[in-house]
């Protein structure tokens, strides 16, 4: 029985939260990696673009709520996400037309692109803060829990409860669907394949008659979908605050690079690598050992490798180590 308790404990405090957080990071990381692979720059506006998409989603959610439209047990935000996506894509295309296009034609070095994306970051941040303000916004409605910890205890008779939030299930489910669709698109359709070709060798791709304008357009559309859904899921699960989104850019970068930048599948896995290592290294295992070990060997301290204050530092350290010893990432991205 103790063993089952220990497993439930780990599931409840490590596995499910890490899987959720990892999914949110993974979507952002694929976004970063696509931009890096096809448009060839590190997009420092990632976090703020995600907050823009989330903001659009929130505004539509409020609108629907005021109309009295709802999805019952599901959050209304799910209904608003498609509209948020449209706004996000329009915004990205606008930015691309007025900012990035010029540098693409100039064939500027990646560093210059990165600098320009910092300009975009400032502007996006300003727009988001001016429209919705810098404060904390919660826009979740509907049923909060699928399984409540107390109910779980009563049903199973265990000491440890397992709480399953609906946002966690939605996040994981949506991520799986979206990522499968994306990989199907990239590997099976003609446009997807030409995107890959363009990312591998631009000149050769152009020679074989691939339309670069179309590639760029499709990239931004996919990026818009990923950014909005990733941002909205994070916002649903925790809460929406522009500053947090800006900060999330850093673990997202870490995930993309750890997975091998330019490699979407690597970025997807990288999100989970970062999330799991953050949570595994900062979790206090005292209770776990109390269940598993006999009474005489119970630990006195918290058995915590690092204090939770260093959560972010963990992912950054992993990234730095990966960058130094294996710059192409764990899953062998191509260093473009």
């Amino acid at each position, binding site marked *: 029985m103790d063993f089952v308790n220990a497993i439930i404990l780990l599931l409840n405090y490590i596995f499910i939260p890490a899987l959720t957080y990892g999914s949110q990071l993974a979507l952002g990381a694929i976004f970063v990696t696509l931009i890096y692979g096809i448009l060839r720059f590190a997009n420092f506006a990632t976090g703020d673009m995600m907050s823009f998409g989330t903001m659009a989603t929130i505004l539509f959610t409020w609108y629907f709520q005021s109309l009295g439209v709802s999805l019952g047990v599901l959050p209304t935000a799910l209904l608003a996400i498609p509209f948020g996506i449209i706004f996000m894509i329009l915004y990205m295309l606008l930015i691309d037309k007025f900012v990035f296009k010029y540098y693409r034609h100039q064939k500027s070095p990646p560093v210059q692109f990165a*600098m320009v994306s910092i300009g975009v970051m400032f502007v996006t941040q300003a727009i988001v803060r001016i429209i919705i303000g810098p404060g904390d916004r919660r826009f979740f409605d509907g049923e909060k829990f699928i399984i409540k910890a107390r109910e779980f205890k009563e049903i199973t008779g265990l000491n440890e409860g397992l709480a399953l939030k609906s946002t966690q299930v939605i996040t994981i489910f949506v991520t799986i669907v979206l990522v499968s669709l994306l990989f199907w698109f990239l590997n099976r359709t003609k446009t997807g394949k030409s995107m890959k070709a363009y990312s591998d060798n631009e000149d050769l791709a152009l020679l074989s008659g691939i339309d670069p304008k179309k590639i760029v357009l499709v990239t931004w559309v996919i990026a818009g979908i990923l950014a909005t859904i990733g941002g909205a899921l994070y916002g649903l699960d925790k809460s929406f605050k522009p500053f947090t989104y800006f900060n999330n850019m850093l673990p997202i970068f870490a995930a993309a690079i750890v997975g091998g930048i330019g490699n979407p599948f690597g970025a997807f896995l990288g999100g989970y690598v970062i999330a799991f290592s953050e949570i595994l290294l900062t979790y206090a295992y005292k209770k776990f050992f109390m269940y598993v070990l006999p009474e005489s060997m119970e630990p006195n301290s918290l058995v915590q490798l690092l204090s939770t204050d260093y959560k972010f530092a963990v992912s950054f350290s992993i990234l730095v180590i990966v960058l130094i010893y294996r710059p192409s990432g764990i899953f062998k991205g191509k260093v473009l």
Partner: protein
Amino acid sequence: MRKNLNVIAAYSIMMVLILMVGIFQSWNIALSIFNLCLISAVMTMGANIQWGYAGLINFGIMGYTALGGLAAVLISVDPVQEAWRAGGFDILMSLWLIVVMVLVIRFILKRFEKSKIRTYSIAAIIISGILLIRFSAEPGIEAIEAVDPAKTGFLGGFGLPIIFSWIVGALFAGGLAFIVGKVALGLRADYLAIATLLISEIVIAIIKHEDWLTRGVKNVIGLKRPAPYEVDLQTTGWFINLVEKFNSGKLSVIENLADRQAALNQLVIEGSSVFVKLCYSGLFLVVVIILLILTQKALYSPWGRMMRAIRDNEEAANAMGKNVVKQHLLIFILGSAIVGIAGAMLVTQDGLFTPGSYRPMRYTFLIWVMVIVGGSGNNFGAILGGFVVWFLWIEAAPISLFLINFFTAGIPETNALKAHLIESVPYFRFLLMGLGLLFIMRYRPKGILPEKIEIK
């Protein structure tokens, strides 16, 4: 003279702008803007050395600034004897352990050939060392943090004049840059940017959460000052006389003696804070001028030419026998050390150290906007960038408030949109910075004062 006309014009405009703030808003605001402009200028000079001279991208400016600030605390605060007695021994033991660990690793690196076993054993030493230090330092740290946590709860510093910290801050930042440079400088430009950004976040995390060293988010307040205190000045004879002399015209108009005394008191209070700020301005100006002379000398020296050669064509410079790796490391350390000075200056001026306030937006990206806008590779440009951008950063809110009121003059105050816009005035500064950066990068990619190299 002729060729420097644009430099002189740009600086004069900047000075006029600051003087206008002094005349229309207040001299206090003008001077605090001016002081922060000077500090920003020091930071941009540091970043400019790395980016403009050598083409190294450093997004870790925030980390070096914070280390400079930490130096100010560690140098100027009086040591907390009780905390030292409570946990000083444990901390010293951990320090000793770290030194031993580094020496062992160095020994292994020197002694054994590169192999998988070596890599794994080094990793094992580091991990077990960290665990060992964590468990051995734990009681000491807890004891230190328990010492009067509302007031101290940390080890304190050396109790020296805070001015020394400007040098120590440079050493701290240079030391960190040495480590960062050793591990990260081989990376490609945008990877380097990300790596330095993340390393600086790690530094901030450590400063924020190691309370025994920095008091963490509890902040350190009331640091010593290199300038006199306002309260002391207000009771000093010569200062009151000085203020009286300066304002004799204004004061002589007032007939009533009591009223005149009250007016004088008011003037003395205002004057004292202006005087203190002027003291800081003087100190900062000295630093800026010394650094400017040094960086200009360096730029036009053979060393400067070599750096530009490395920046423009690394392979060619390498082929000419220049040690690119070593020079990159050197310039990375120099630039970061200058940023460290600025960090110490900043904390000196504020008189408090707030680890929570170090955010990449303000201390990394804004500084980069300054470098790009001012003109990378040109020291005068970098300083000007620091001035222009900081000025706009502060004055963006009043300017945008004015513009909003101007354009919505016909709309009543109660209009929801107008109220919302006025409420979000503070965020227009981000918009202004972003647009400024985008426009400069598009239409004047070399900045306001472009780099120009005369070859004679």
